[in-house]
């Protein structure tokens, strides 16, 4: 489904124009919430890597905006369920939105957590270097997942989901490297733990970006590919609709 398809075939064909508008609205609001979360994540990683406490502070104090958007979208979805009793692809869209905003809100929480830890770093620390690469990778995943959601593009969703393999392996590398450091210089443990927790948060963000990709497959194909292998997900996503 490309950009035109979702515009043309999905949001404009209901007999009820208002229903078209409501669905279009929740879809586009997910993207604006996604944009905010992307910014929070970018700021949190930058704050951590570049030791910018004012940016870290901004991330921590801005999380409420993400939470507020989640609550509002949740209410809009509830209203659609009550008023429209959506079925088929309409129902799948509303469910995909409800699930996506939950994951986005949790990504926002992870960004806030990273921001709080960044406040502990008062000077540049070489231990944070690997965070930069993992942070960049999961930011790319989140961006790709939101892009797939915007266009309801299953092929992109599958590609982005598979990038989670790399996020997981990067995370493992970071953890083992830091364990080495902690064993050799115990005085570095408190700082190293912050970096481990940051890496952990980023790894979880990768998982959540993958979840969003799975909701895209659910919406487009009607297949629930959660808790399946990447191969299975790719097969379901690219195969016939049924």
């Amino acid at each position, binding site marked *: 489904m490309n950009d035109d398809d979702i515009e043309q075939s999905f949001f404009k064909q209901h007999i009820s124009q208002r229903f078209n508008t409501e669905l279009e609205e929740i879809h586009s609001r997910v993207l604006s919430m996604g944009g905010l979360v992307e910014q929070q994540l970018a700021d949190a990683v930058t704050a951590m890597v570049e030791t910018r406490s004012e940016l870290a502070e901004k991330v921590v104090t801005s999380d409420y905006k993400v939470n507020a958007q989640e609550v509002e979208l949740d209410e809009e979805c509830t209203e659609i369920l009550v008023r429209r009793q959506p079925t088929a692809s309409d129902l799948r869209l509303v469910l995909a939105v409800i699930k996506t905003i939950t994951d986005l809100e949790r990504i926002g929480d992870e960004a806030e957590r990273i921001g709080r830890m960044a406040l502990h770093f008062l000077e540049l620390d070489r231990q944070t270097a690997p965070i930069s690469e993992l942070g960049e990778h999961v930011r790319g995943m989140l961006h790709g997942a939101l892009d797939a959601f915007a266009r309801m593009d299953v092929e992109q969703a599958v590609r982005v989901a598979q990038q989670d393999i790399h996020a997981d392996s990067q995370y493992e590398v970071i953890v083992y490297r830091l*364990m080495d450091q902690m064993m050799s210089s115990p005085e570095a443990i408190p700082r190293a733990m912050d970096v481990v927790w940051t890496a952990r948060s980023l790894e979880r963000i990768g998982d959540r970006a993958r979840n969003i990709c799975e909701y895209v497959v659910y919406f487009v194909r009607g*297949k629930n590919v959660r808790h399946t292998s990447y*191969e299975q997900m790719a097969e379901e996503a690219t195969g016939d609709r049924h």
Partner: protein
Amino acid sequence: MRMPQPNDNPGNSGGVAARSSLGGAELREGSDTVEGEDHRPQPAAAPGVTRAPEIAAGHDAEEPTHPTKVDVRGLNLWYGETQALFDVSLRIPEKDVTALIGPSGCGKSTFLRCINRMNDLIPSVAIQGQLLLDETDVYGPDVDVVQLRSRVGMVFQKPNPFPKSIYENIAYAPRIHGLAKKGAEMDELVETSLRKAGLWKEVSDRLSMPGTALSGGQQQRLCIARAIAVNPDVILMDEPASALDPVATATIEELIDELRSNYTIIIVTHNMQQAARVARYTAFFHLGEVIEYDDTDTIFTNPRQKRTEDYITGRFG
């Protein structure tokens, strides 16, 4: 202290083991069917989603499908020159609820009326094809239509009790069919029928009151009790709750749910949420054809045909 691991969350587990029952039944399109083929919705043998066994085990397993009660093969129907049903093929399972949905004039009520030959009453109707009830052709030369209609009861949109007492509404048909004699035996049959229809408690002390004095919802349950009294196999319901308020509608739906274990129920409804609530299987009719027939869940969450999707989501077809 345990180090956090990348695969801590189940979202990352790539289990490939048990097969879940997701995936829906094969398409059952009236116009594409082969005679003798099984037209019941079937649990999918093919594309499913594999999951780790502990997750797959928690998924609802597809229950075995009941045997076919009504087997329709290539049914065509004309009102004079106008064809109203086109090559309809459906296998309707026994002792469960099947809903027929579709826009006005799509042929769903016409089809329903074929099952107990109600269309015989319209002189210009011509029918071609096979409609088997327990493997006996309903349109066969030896079929006694009165007997047929005692086996295939019908409930209409508007409650239509006889202008007689509540008791007589129930007793009338069993008496004609010789199912019960007067007195205690008939009393028992009346009580049983009213109990099955969930009406006994409300009317047991006023059985001699006219049936027409009951509320709309009660009248409809009286009509269901009247249908049950002759011990039918199949109950056809043509929009049974469309003239009722939400509470009476919920009562009728609850009753349908209770009756499903003993009767084959086929219900025509314009209310799609009602079909979704009461029916295990749903057939979508459009312009006299069966477009799609499948598990109700599949029809309402992931229909195969665009025409079904357009109809149930309220899009321009």
